[in-house]
């Protein structure tokens, strides 16, 4: 079953729309769903032109395709447990929060908190992601707990904060403090970033470019070969009695 949701032009274009009802499973029982714009509840078809082709009896058989000005559309794919969501343009905050299975593919950019507290499944973003991609919630201790997030563009700050398990790959640069407080899982940044793996407890963080403002409390172990690259291995964060591994191509301290 393929569900196509084309965003209609809105009068109050900047008020965010919260649409956690947009998960493949929900379309098995029709398109009679509700979303919120600010404090007003709206029917799905007030916001989108909705069309459905084919049938399905399980979430795995459902693909939802979103098009139009979807950059203010929040919480799409929250608690998703199977099936596929394809976003042809940009997507708003909190896409794929808590998802446990299935696939989300974003052709444009993603706003903050993409895949927050994700536990399984896969998210692919062809564009850039804003801050807190694959992170946790305020005050929480565990961020992402499983699954994979792959970003082909750049990532903002606090990427994979509190990462507990799963894999996060960013092909471009990342911002400040990727992998802060990480305690497990794998974070790979192909480009440059600043202050990676600050206060890490465990897990592995790879920076294939330059780590700027390197945290001074990582212990240098020495060069290692990884995936055809020579990287320098560090252990830390000693300040936090951490037992994590940080691998960087180049690094600079703020001295």
């Amino acid at each position, binding site marked *: 079953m393929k569900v196509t949701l084309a965003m209609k032009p809105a009068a*109050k274009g*900047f*008020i*965010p729309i*919260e649409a956690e009802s947009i998960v493949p499973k929900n379309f098995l029982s029709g398109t009679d769903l509700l979303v*919120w*714009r*600010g*404090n*007003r509840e709206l029917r799905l078809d007030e916001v989108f032109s909705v069309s459905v082709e084919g049938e399905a009896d399980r979430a795995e058989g459902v693909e939802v395709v979103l098009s139009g000005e979807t950059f*203010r559309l929040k919480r799409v794919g929250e608690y998703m447990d199977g099936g596929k969501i394809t976003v042809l343009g940009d997507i708003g*905050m909190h896409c794929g929060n808590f998802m446990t299975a299935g696939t989300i593919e974003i052709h444009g950019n993603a706003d*903050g*908190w993409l895949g927050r507290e994700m536990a399984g499944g896969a998210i692919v973003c062809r564009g850039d992601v804003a*801050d*807190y991609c694959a992170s946790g*919630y*305020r*005050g929480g201790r565990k961020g992402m707990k499983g699954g994979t997030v792959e970003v082909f563009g750049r990532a903002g700050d606090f990427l994979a904060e509190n990462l507990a398990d799963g894999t996060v790959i960013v092909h471009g640069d990342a911002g*400040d*403090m990727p992998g*802060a*407080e990480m305690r497990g899982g794998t974070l790979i940044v192909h480009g440059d970033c600043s*202050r990676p793996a*600050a*206060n890490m407890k465990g897990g592995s963080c790879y920076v294939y470019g330059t780590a700027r*403002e390197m*945290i*001074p*409390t*990582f*212990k*240098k172990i020495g060069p290692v070969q990884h995936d055809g690259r020579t990287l320098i291995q560090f252990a830390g*964060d*000693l*300040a*936090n*009695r951490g037992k994590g591994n940080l691998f960087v191509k180049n690094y600079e*301290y*703020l*001295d």
Partner: protein
Amino acid sequence: MIVKDAVCPFCGCLCDDIEVEVEGDRVVAVTNACELGTTKFMGEKRLKNPIQRVGDEWKDITYDEAIRYAADMLLSAERPLLYGWSGTHGEAQCVGVHMAELIHGVIDNTSSVCHGPSILAIQEVGHPGCTLGVVKNRADLVIYWGSNPIDAHPRHLSRYTRYAEGFFLDNAFRDRKVIVVDVRKTETANIADEFVQVRPGGDYAILSALRAIVQGKTETIPRTVAGVTREQLIRVANLCKSAKFGAVYFGLGLTMTPGKYKNIRNAIELVSELNRHTKFTISAMRGHYNVYGSNEVNTWMTGYPFGIDFSRGIAFYNPGETTAVDILARKECDAALIVGSDPAAHFPRRCLEHLAEIPIVQLDPYPNATTAFCNVQIPVAVTGIDAEGTAYRMDGVPIRTRRVLWSDYLSDEEVLSRMYALMQEAQQP
């Protein structure tokens, strides 16, 4: 008439030993307050009555009209923002929360651009703190980190630290050491026993290094960290460990610089680490006299200290998304009520551009920068001068501000309660 033990409604020190001399409806002299407090008590040029912008003109309107305007504006909004709150008393803040809940709006206070990052840090690792009197009576080491009390909290040094008498210190001025950590050699740095000058943006690295040094892992630390030599870091760590009671007071130099709340988290974790060796506490130098009160009120009523979004009926909290600067910069609200703050003076330009596009009602005694963006401004009494109510000091101690003179102005609580009553009426089925 002289009012003794008046409470100063300027900064988070909330000094409560002020003597105010009043003649008729004017304050004529202020004793004990700093320059900031004195000026506030002597404040003039209040707005006389509610005003409304009509086209390119301002016209005077009645309180009833102004309050009705605000109620209608908020009721018809899809995503109203209720911002400010630090410059008013707790009783008014409570009405504000009820209002946000009723109209399904977002309520945020000035801590989002002040110590909001400190709160985010506390939510990750907690907060070993104490009241100011504990420091005054015990601390033999005080560290001001990214804070400049001589300019921002002028009596902090004389009431609680450098120049304060302490029960357990024979000669407090001599026996108490002061360390200042800053990127600038501020006036406060000049009175310190030790000044640690950090390269801008380097606080986090220095805090990590200190944590490792306190644990005895000195060998990994590079020779200099963010402009500070390893030797100085070791000296500072030793000063901390050998103190009987140490206290860190940090300011916006940590909350506003890159890393934001991670800087505070690192400072808190340093203090927690030091508690394995001696007694250490850490506290934020809160700005507005009642910004902490706004956090307290929001917390007991909604569960969260600031940035609370009631759009969906339940309380949702996510600073960075539900905080005023982000909402305004992203143009995500369609009306705003401003109480006890001046966002137009203190927010980046892009936020102001959105303020210009949406209806705004402000409660404030004075014309200020935000006035220019208002559709309606309602003058109110000043808490601590012609209104009274609860305020929370920077260390969480609640103090009732006093009224030192009587005026005809309504208090924030009275204006907001009337607004709230109108909204409740409108929402009755």
